[in-house]
């Protein structure tokens, strides 16, 4: 594995005292430097930062409560003005920037608030998948006897197409944020397990692991203290792509009607409700769709950039 860069500051005179290898390590750009200057990471990262701000600042971006509706303001075109009734019974004048749906709800507000759910589900699913994948991958890679049966089970889970599995799981359990996150994470676990396992198999042969074993270090400490830190880079790349896939799958689940309950505004939900009138009022479907595409695109671009900077060997594959 590439050595981690040295980040302490040293004076010019100190450099002479270093050996040839140490000087080479100091001069090479660290992974962090490569990440900062990579075009894809910057673009994707910037886009995601904007989306994060939008998600956090939702109440202050000219939105109303996304669940409010007004029968007088149904099916307005984007940009039209209308009224909206608040929970207290007041009627406010409101410009529907992205139009309104068949209940009279403001699409703009629903889309903005939907950003929260999508980002939340994306990150949560990636974290859950990564956590279980790391545990299983470390076990399979380091503990020989678990390897065979564990990988057979992973092959089995991978044989079931991810969306089908997610649909079935959400359909069997009650639809809630927790079940959706778990249902999306489960099909992604085998891939992470495979990745971690193959990394562990390589790292296991490194001299420092042999030294740790010789010193009598307990197995969990070897797994989590020595092997795991060296798997972080590829895991980060994989996690980013899982996040992108998770956002997509959540939207698909909601669109098909097997995702989050309809009172929570997610982009998939908005599209599901709007699809009935697509021919007459396409704005119901297009606005959330654009946000969805842009978000997933940003995460994918970020992932590509991270992969190119953190592991040039991976960049040559796929």
């Amino acid at each position, binding site marked *: 594995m590439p050595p981690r860069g040295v980040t302490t500051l040293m004076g010019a005179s100190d450099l002479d005292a270093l050996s040839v290898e140490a000087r080479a390590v100091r001069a090479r750009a660290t992974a962090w430097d490569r990440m900062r200057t990579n075009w894809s990471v910057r673009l994707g990262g910037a886009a995601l930062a904007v989306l994060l701000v939008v998600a956090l600042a939702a109440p202050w971006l000219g939105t109303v409560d996304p669940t409010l509706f007004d029968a007088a303001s149904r099916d307005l075109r984007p940009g039209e003005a209308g009224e909206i009734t608040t929970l207290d019974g007041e009627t406010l004048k409101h410009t529907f920037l992205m139009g309104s749906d068949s209940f009279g709800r403001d699409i703009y507000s629903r889309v903005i608030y939907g950003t929260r759910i999508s980002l939340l589900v994306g990150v949560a699913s990636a974290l859950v998948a990564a956590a279980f994948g790391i545990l299983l991958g470390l076990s399979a890679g380091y503990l020989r006897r678990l390897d065979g049966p564990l990988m*057979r*089970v992973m*092959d*089995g*889970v991978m*044989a*079931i*197409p*991810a*969306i*089908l*599995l997610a*649909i*079935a*799981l*959400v*359909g*069997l*359990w009650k639809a809630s944020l927790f079940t959706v996150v778990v249902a999306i994470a489960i099909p992604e676990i085998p891939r992470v397990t495979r990745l971690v396992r193959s990394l562990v198999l390589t790292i296991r042969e490194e001299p420092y692991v042999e030294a740790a074993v010789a010193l009598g270090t307990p197995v969990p400490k070897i797994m989590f203290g020595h092997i795991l830190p060296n798997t972080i880079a590829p895991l980060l790349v994989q996690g980013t792509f899982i996040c*992108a896939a998770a956002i*997509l799958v959540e*939207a*698909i689940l909601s*669109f*098909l*009607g*097997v995702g989050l309950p309809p009172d929570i505004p997610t982009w998939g939900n908005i*599209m599901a409700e709007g*699809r009935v009138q*697509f*021919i007459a009022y*396409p704005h119901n*479907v*297009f606005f959330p*769709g*654009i946000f*969805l*595409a842009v978000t*997933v*695109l940003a995460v*994918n*671009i970020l992932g*590509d950039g991270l992969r190119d900077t953190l592991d040039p060997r991976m960049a*040559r*594959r*796929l």
Partner: protein
Amino acid sequence: MWAFLARRVAATIPVLFVVAVLVFLMLRLTPGDPAAILAGDAATGDQIAKIRASLGLDRPLVVQFGIWFANLLAGDLGESFFYKMKVATLIGQRLEPTLALATLTIVVAIAVAVPLGVAAAWRFGGWLDRALMGFSVLGFSVPVFVLAYILIYVVSLKLGWLPVQGYQRLGDGIGPFLRHLVLPAITLSVVYIALIARVTRASVLEALGEDYIRTARAKGLPEIRVLVRHALANAAVPIATVIGIGVALLIGGVVVTESVYAIPGLGRLTVDAVLARDFPTVQGVILFFSFAYVLVNLLVDLSYVLFDPRIRY
């Protein structure tokens, strides 16, 4: 070579078995009583007890699995609660539209992606190469149903070239059959094209760097022959692999595409069955798709022998 083939076929058996176990466990592991879930919200205690007995849910788990698995091997996938017919029959009825869509999509995807990938690798760094990489990222990111609505809006509503939704059987004439399938196939193939083109480009690029390409060109062979007979042939194994793996994406995409374009296939059946809590059908469809996926990948693995005579293990 036959040992290799036999070994590959034998290797799929454990995977299929694990899939069967997982599908079986999915219903049994839901929180709450499976019999109560199957009976529905309005059932009485007696009705639930009757269902439990009839489905053998009061027997030990292993016995249940044994019975279910034995039925499975005999081709009996159970009976659908919602449609009141055997699940196997139901799947048979809905198979044609899905198969037609999937086949058309695969054909279109390979026909478009492989030449594009080869061309991009040939003119490495050129405009086609960069356009392809850009398109490829877009293809992964724009969701299938968003693309579907964009295509419907532009092609069907504004231009009126193709019908918006629906499916016509092949037996009713090939014209309407194709016209209704063109948009769904294009929508579904975009992701597949992005994937295949990317891998084709990478694989052919690697092959073009080899010495035998230089020899072939030095011999004076036409460039087309060099690209196809020498570069592509040696690059074929990873491409075939990704085509196999992509079928999983295809199956997922089929579910959404059929939903948008109102095609009465297996994808729609899955969604309808889940919404109706029709578990035997859900189980049956998942088993069917998983087995199909494993089968396709097995065929891909077996095809390696055709592409690379060196593979003999």
